[in-house]
């Protein structure tokens, strides 16, 4: 039997063509004439999927924007297109293909803005990482996807893009945001409305330009953890991480800790303003003299080790910070946002 569609000669008795699948004898075939119907619950789901598909629809004739000729020439070359993509979406825009990446550019912008807004915190770093990833994808999408066919080549290119953009973003951070540094508060200071875990924004220039006062919160490298048998043997403590500390004693002053309060030159300080950290409470220590170009700071250490003997020598060594080691002066409670605000000036 000959197929009416493809003219293939089929074996007698066949219902459908072996080559193209057409019905051979239409008049005698048993044909289902009731069309399939869509269950109502599928409607909304399909609508969403359809909307997403339509977002990817590329118009046939997009008028190319008016841009200088050299940009157009650059955008046609993969490598230069990649360079143009340092501003996300610029190469696409020049090429009249911005619609392809418009949502990515929007998400990049939002994550970058949010990342800068809460910069220094873990979510902020995550958002900035996301921004770098999206940025590299936009550049990758424009410049390389057309020319590279092997998956391994594409992956290598993506990794290189991420690396290059990581350097660019780090460079921006070290130039534009050079004067700013962040640190987490490890102790609660009710007077400054600081709670342990708050992220503080500090400025570097202030430690040189302004004289540091008692009550200022500074970011400084403090001594490392004190464990039994280490600090009290007269050895120098390890250089520890940068921590937020409160200046209690200035150069030339005598600092004592009496009944869980700081006493400076015989005058007891307000415990709300100058709280004694947990590890020093219950001990009467001092007096400790603050040497030249140094400050006595109050901060938190890990003293859970056994055999630690808290004496004036050890506390003096742990709490003393040289003025040139001070990284920055904290000025704003940055995160959590509910308690965001400027810190009060010291005395």
């Amino acid at each position, binding site marked *: 039997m000959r197929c009416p569609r493809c003219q293939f000669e089929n074996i007698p008795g066949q219902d459908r063509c072996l080559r193209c699948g*057409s019905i051979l004898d239409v*008049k005698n075939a048993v*044909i289902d004439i009731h*069309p399939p119907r869509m269950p109502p619950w599928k409607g909304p789901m399909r609508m969403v999927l359809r909307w997403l598909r339509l977002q990817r*629809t590329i118009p046939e004739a997009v008028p190319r924007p008016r841009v200088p000729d050299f940009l157009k020439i650059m955008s046609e070359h993969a490598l230069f297109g990649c360079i143009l993509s340092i501003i996300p979406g610029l190469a696409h825009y020049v090429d009249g293909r911005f619609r392809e990446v418009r949502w990515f550019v929007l998400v990049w912008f939002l994550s970058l803005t949010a990342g800068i807004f809460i910069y220094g915190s873990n979510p902020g770093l995550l958002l900035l990482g996301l921004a770098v990833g999206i940025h590299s994808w936009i550049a990758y999408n424009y410049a390389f996807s057309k020319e590279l066919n092997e998956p391994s080549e594409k992956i290598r290119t993506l990794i290189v893009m991420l690396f290059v953009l990581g350097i660019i973003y780090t460079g921006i951070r070290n130039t534009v945001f050079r004067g700013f540094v962040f640190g987490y508060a490890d102790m609660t200071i009710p007077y400054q409305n600081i709670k342990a875990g708050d992220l503080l924004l500090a400025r570097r220039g202030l430690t040189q330009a302004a004289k540091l006062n008692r009550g200022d919160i500074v970011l400084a490298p403090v001594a490392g953890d004190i464990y039994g048998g280490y600090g009290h043997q007269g050895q120098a403590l390890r250089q520890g991480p940068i921590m937020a500390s409160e200046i209690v004693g200035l150069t030339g002053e005598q600092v004592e800790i009496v009944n869980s309060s700081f006493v400076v030159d015989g005058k007891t300080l307000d415990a709300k303003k100058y709280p004694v950290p947990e590890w020093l409470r219950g001990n009467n220590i001092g007096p400790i003299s603050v040497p030249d170009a140094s400050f006595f700071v109050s901060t938190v250490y890990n003293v859970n080790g056994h055999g630690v003997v808290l004496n004036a020598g050890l506390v003096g060594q742990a709490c003393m910070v040289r003025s040139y080691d001070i990284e920055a002066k904290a000025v704003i409670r940055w995160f959590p946002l509910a308690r965001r605000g400027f810190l009060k000036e010291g005395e």
Partner: protein
Amino acid sequence: MRRFSRLEFGDKGDGGAAKPAPDGEEMRNAEYFQKQALRYQLAGDFELALRNYSRSLEKNSVFYPGWVGQVLMLIELGEYKEAAVWVDKALEMFPEHPELLAAKAVACARDGRMEKAIVYSDNSIAKDNVTSAVWLARAEVLLNRKSNIAQNCISKALSIAGEDGAMVKLQAGRLLNQKGDYAAALQYLRTASDELPKSALVWYELGFAQARLGRPEAAISFEQALKFHPTWPPAEEALRKFENRGFFTRLFGR
């Protein structure tokens, strides 16, 4: 009347012209149900139109307009995936038929599958005996891609429409309404309303375009639609919305 015209020869198909029954009533063959389907289609009741197309196929399973009508009604009901499946089935019987390929292109385009839509549209337009439905489908696909030549496809569809001119104008108007070109849609729908004055769908679409352009005649058009299809929810809703439009909408016309 010929001598043997009333003899039965065991023909399964009723595909011939509708013959009057002995008592004068029209015979309920495939054409009859097709006409019924078209009536419901023009009244905007696509569900009933689909059922009538199915009934026309019950009478004659190789009745081509029945298959095309079913596919088009599925598209009108928003069941694009099902329409695409049904086109494939119809294509088994009517291979490479340009109208079926065009219907598949429309189903794909409305489902957001533009690459497939353009392929089917290209395929349909390359065939011989291209009808106005093929050109309208082409126009829809091109309008989705924001192409400037879609209007030329509509003009082409109208030029080859012949007796179906009113239907083509209605479809063109509906298409342009969907794509937001209300001024162009209004032109087609006005002439369509002259040629199909009893179609609720034409009046509804005309009212829709007028309402979007801020024309007060929209209310009359919706009322006309309700006159021919009473208690039609979309027309009632559109009329209610138009009459309750806000101050600024009335002031600025749209």
